């Protein structure tokens, strides 16, 4: 087997290379245009400077932050008189802003709010894709249509119910709400992925005597791992970065990081040593997820992006 593979591989590689080369040659004229490079560099700088500014600021002593702009560290660097510190982060996490607590809250909120809706959506998507029942198409279109409902429409009625049930302010309300809001898009996307799996695979399993539950777990789940990863990352970032749902449903001790940081911005808008560190504490997890799993994230984005 290996010899055959070895024989084939270089040929494929060669063809691929030549095709890429052709494209590269074809586009060379445009790439060398100084205008194109100029625009690219300008945009890249414009898009990076704001974040860079706040990042540098978050490591400066608070007196320096108040006295001068962050860009002054560049000439200072050459004169060797710049001081960087982790004091701001220490203040933000352990000081009276207690962002450490809210960091835990964000995790506690996000993990179930990703696991539960994805599992529910997978099961529902399976029903719509592979179980033959009456009214299937009408129901599926109805679910798809629910994507248009903005969160705002559902917040007040849900909050009232939570108060009546006596669970308002708890994590349970955020888990339930995030799960509901995620379902329409999740069902729609995962259904599309499931439909792409060849019918013959499912039929073969059925002939072997597998019921729906077995087909779902044994045949479809393993094939759907990339799709689940894509949507999982998407949902993770969405819940982690959410402000509206957290703000509406959680009580003071259960707030996610976004709400806590937004409140800092409201009440201590001038204390940049705290705000800059706080902002980056809230961004660290999404940034790591994004950089580590960029490929899946982009795929999820390309598959379907209407959410909210």
């Amino acid at each position: 087997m290996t010899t055959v593979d070895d024989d084939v591989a270089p040929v494929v590689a060669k063809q691929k290379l030549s095709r890429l080369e052709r494209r590269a040659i074809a586009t060379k004229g445009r790439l060398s245009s100084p205008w194109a490079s100029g625009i690219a560099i300008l945009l890249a700088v414009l898009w990076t400077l704001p974040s860079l500014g706040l990042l540098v600021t978050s490591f400066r002593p608070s007196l320096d932050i108040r006295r001068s702009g962050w860009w002054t560290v560049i000439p200072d660097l050459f004169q060797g008189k710049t001081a960087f510190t982790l004091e701001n982060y220490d203040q933000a996490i352990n000081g009276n802003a207690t962002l450490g607590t809210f960091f835990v809250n964000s995790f506690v909120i996000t993990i179930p709010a990703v696991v539960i809706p994805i599992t529910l959506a997978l099961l529902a998507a399976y029903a719509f894709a592979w179980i033959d029942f009456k009214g299937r198409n009408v129901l599926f279109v109805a679910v798809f249509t629910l994507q248009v409902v903005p969160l705002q429409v559902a917040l007040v009625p849900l909050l009232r119910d939570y108060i009546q049930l006596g669970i308002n302010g708890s994590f349970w309300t955020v888990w339930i709400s995030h799960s509901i809001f995620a379902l329409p898009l999740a069902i729609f996307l995962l259904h599309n992925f499931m439909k792409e799996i060849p019918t013959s695979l499912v039929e073969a399993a059925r002939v072997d005597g597998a019921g729906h539950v077995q087909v779902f777990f044994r045949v479809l789940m393993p094939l759907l791992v990339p799709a689940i990863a894509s949507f999982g990352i998407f949902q993770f970032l969405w819940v982690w970065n959410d402000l509206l749902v957290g703000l509406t449903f959680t009580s003071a001790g259960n707030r996610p990081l976004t709400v806590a940081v937004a409140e800092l911005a409201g009440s201590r808008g001038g204390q940049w040593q705290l705000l800059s560190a706080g902002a980056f504490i809230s961004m660290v997890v999404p940034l790591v997820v994004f950089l580590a799993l960029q490929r899946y994230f982009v795929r999820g984005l390309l598959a379907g992006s209407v959410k909210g």
Partner: protein
Amino acid sequence: MGWLLNPTTTGEKIADMLVAIALFVVVMGLILYLVDRPRRVPNWLVALAFAGVPLLLLTYGLVRSALITLWNSFFNRNGTAFVGFDNYKQAFTQGQFQQVLVNTAIWVILVPILATLIGLVYAVVVDRSRFEKAAKALIFIPMAISMVGASIIWRFVYEFRPNQPNIQQTGLLNQVLVWIGLEPQQFLSTQPWNTWFLIVVMIWIQTGFAMTVLSAAIKAIPDDIVEAARLDGLGGFGMFRYITVPSIRPALIVVLTTIAITALKVFDIVRTMTGGQFGTGVVANEFYTQAFRQNNQGLASALAVVLFVLVIPIIAYNVRQLRKTEEVR
């Protein structure tokens, strides 16, 4: 069992989370186990076991809630008296709310157009360059962080200090103004331009999305079309205008409509940067203020319904375009 509802320590919170997941797994597992046991189960029962819980949640959480909100929008602030269309009349005629609607319109028009334009230009100029991957990641990162984080980043760019001899500017934009000899500005409180400076933040976030989708579409343009056009003497801008843009038209529409919906629902940015003050309010922010600060449920519901109604045509257009492109394929 108080910790199940009101966990106070980190340990209790994590235990709470594990209980929730375990409970969920047990319930769903039981349902599936029951339906898998007997040999002959009618299809509708299996379908109910798979899709019942999600459909129930959707009916309860979205359909029922939307109907309640619609109903509430015809009542007064605490739901005690029927007021007909008064809440809508107030939203569309009172100066304060008209401003909110005008601002929302500016957001919905400017953000998609500018973000898509910049994203498209960037996608074209970095396409197949040596640094493509890194260059794209730079533009894309704002998409991964929260809008709250983005707002704080930009509030720092707009930071204002009065122009006095001993005071240095700490906001980059005002420093640039001072460097070129102009007066520093209070970007976030000077009407009407402050809305534009908030819009910049949303463009900064959404350009990465536009760039990613459009870049994928550009790469999907068949080689032979590009080569044929080149043989016909097209190059540079002509290629962009007559080959690239028409070829990616469906992707352009998806990007424009998706960003328009995001801009329509903008809340985080306005709330974090100005709190809706200084004439920067938008519908989603005003909804929150009316519902949870002013406690005017009638007006809040009406604003939510307005948001709902405004989303529908955009999504309908989007779906129709998607259908069309699928037919072509």
